[in-house]
């Protein structure tokens, strides 16, 4: 009872990376709270699924294995979580801010009248004092996320309602195995007891999923462009530099919205979070939503002709010049000196 739960998203029989990242975070939160970490895996053909999650320090794995549970549809997965949570009364529930998590999370939160915060970039445990009513709440989940319109970060709490629910984007938290031989209990539930037959009304009749064309999330070097790149052609220069450096190319939301690069390359709070050893920001001013997705980079180089661009304040190197001038020189001198 009152444990930390992570909903594990399944692609086929494979647990999504974002869920393993949340198990890692969930383990830390559970240890801090002195409670257990529990995982929920719902899908089809999940015979050995616990092997994928237990090493992350999971104390109990709830497995729901039935033919209708993959591909994901909203109603059966909602019923699983709602009915399980009514029994188990978790204090915290985390899920990925993916298409599935953002479809499922709000539906579950509505059914349980619990609060849900989307796209958190940090999760911490702390106390909350409600001064108006003179009540202090111990050990709440601080759900921290940038808010719109400038350099604002909001901390959200759910004082009265459980579970405290949050979604987190892939790559924001680190994935770390706790112990390959971690022992946890595996519970295989009777799906029919949780999901009424009437829940299977929406049918997936066709489905195409492609593997990502790039590995932005895990790239050791990222070359990112902003609105200052000026055009899709401007981004060609970045791809050229990235090819030389064996780097991946990303973009700010402004660059994506302007059509300079593909949506799946967006870096920031509502895109991919990256942790490279080198981040080269080209023509990016540095809205907080962008910085939230790259601030952990080892070394940051900012190429910008505006000396007051906010991103310069977190950069290790600021190259004060236009992207058109500087990037070809970087390519040229890399070629010259790397051989």
């Amino acid at each position, binding site marked *: 009872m009152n444990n930390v739960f992570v909903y594990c998203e399944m692609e086929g029989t494979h647990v999504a990376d974002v869920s393993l990242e949340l198990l890692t975070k969930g383990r830390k939160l559970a240890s801090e709270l002195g409670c257990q970490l529990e995982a929920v895996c719902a899908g089809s053909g999940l015979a050995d699924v616990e092997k994928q999650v237990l090493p992350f320090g999971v104390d109990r794995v709830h497995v729901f294995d039935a033919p209708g549970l993959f591909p994901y549809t909203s109603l059966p997965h909602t019923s699983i979580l709602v009915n399980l949570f009514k029994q188990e009364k978790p204090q915290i529930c985390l899920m990925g801010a993916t298409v599935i998590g*953002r479809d499922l*999370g709000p539906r579950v939160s509505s059914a349980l009248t619990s609060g849900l915060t*989307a796209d958190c970039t940090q999760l911490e445990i702390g106390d909350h004092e409600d001064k108006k009513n003179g009540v202090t709440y111990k050990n709440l989940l601080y759900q921290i996320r940038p808010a719109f319109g400038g350099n604002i970060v909001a901390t959200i*709490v759910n*004082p009265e309602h459980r579970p405290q629910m949050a979604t987190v984007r892939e790559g924001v938290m680190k994935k770390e195995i706790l112990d390959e031989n971690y022992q946890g209990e595996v519970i295989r539930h009777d799906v029919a007891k949780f999901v009424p037959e009437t829940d299977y009304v*929406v049918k997936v009749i066709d489905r195409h*999923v492609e593997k990502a064309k790039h590995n932005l999330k895990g790239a050791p070097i990222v070359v990112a462009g902003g609105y200052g790149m000026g055009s899709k052609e401007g981004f060609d220069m970045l791809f050229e530099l990235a090819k030389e450096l064996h780097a991946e190319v990303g973009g700010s939301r402004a660059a994506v919205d302007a059509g300079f690069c593909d949506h799946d390359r967006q870096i920031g709070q509502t895109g991919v979070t990256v942790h490279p050893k080198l981040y080269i920001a080209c023509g990016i001013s540095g809205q907080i939503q962008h910085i939230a997705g790259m601030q952990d980079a080892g070394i940051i180089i900012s190429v910008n002709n505006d000396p007051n661009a906010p991103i310069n*304040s977190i950069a290790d190197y600021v190259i004060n010049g236009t992207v058109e001038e500087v990037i070809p020189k970087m390519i040229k001198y890399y070629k010259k000196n790397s051989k």
Partner: protein
Amino acid sequence: MSLKIVVLAKQVPDTRCVGKDAMNADGTINRSALPAIFNPEDLNALEQALRLKDTHPGSTVTMLTMGPGRAAEIIREGLYRGADNGYLLTDRAFAGADTLATSYALATAIRKIGKYDIIIGGRQAIDGDTAQVGPQVAEKLGLPQVTYVEEIEEIANGRIRVKRHIDGGVETVEGPLPIVLTVNGSAAPCRPRNAKLVMKYKRAMGGQEKAALAKDGQELAYSDLYEKRPYLNITEWSVADVDGDTSQCGLSGSPTKVKKIENIVFQAKESKTITGSDADVENLIVELLANHTIG
């Protein structure tokens, strides 16, 4: 078959043009500095609704929004493009709502509207980017949902087939009516205003807008029109009008509380500023190669 369609739409501050005066000194949002616009993805949803009206004669499109009196603008914009009518949920008791309290209010209003086959809105609003209200409305009404919709392909025999985006791909799904759909920004853009409809509805106003004119000492032009042409009166609904429970509305109906808002000042690192000259760029590249950052 003819369809009853409800479009959920929100008036939002245009966060895409945030300027220096977007924030007040105390860290709150200076809404007056940001233009109020029709939430972009709600326009994509409106277009899907209007296409259904085009292909299913006898269908009606009803706009539903929640906000202050001036949010009647959203309903007018819908009427200009082909919606048939609209309701503005407006009451002080709705203020300060998080997504759950918002979806409660919208679901109660939809029940008041009574008949519906499709409830459709944008995937998310640009002022919060949460994408929560659609699924929460669906849950409150006990309806199935399909989110991230790209296109409605067909409606036949009480079932709907839609194409939707999923992570890394696309899916075609089929479900029963009534249903809640949320539409992506990459779906077909909304049609422009229709000149004839603009002429017909340009004087359409909500009660609060009329009251605001009176308060400014302005006279309501052609005031007799509002009796002769009832469609010019945009219906405003309070909590009581939709038989709502105030404890589930607004701030008191919101499980999430904002504990703290911080203005982040980034700790300036010890940064090295160089020019874009050949010598400076070459020196930097050599330095990065030497310490194995690149290479």
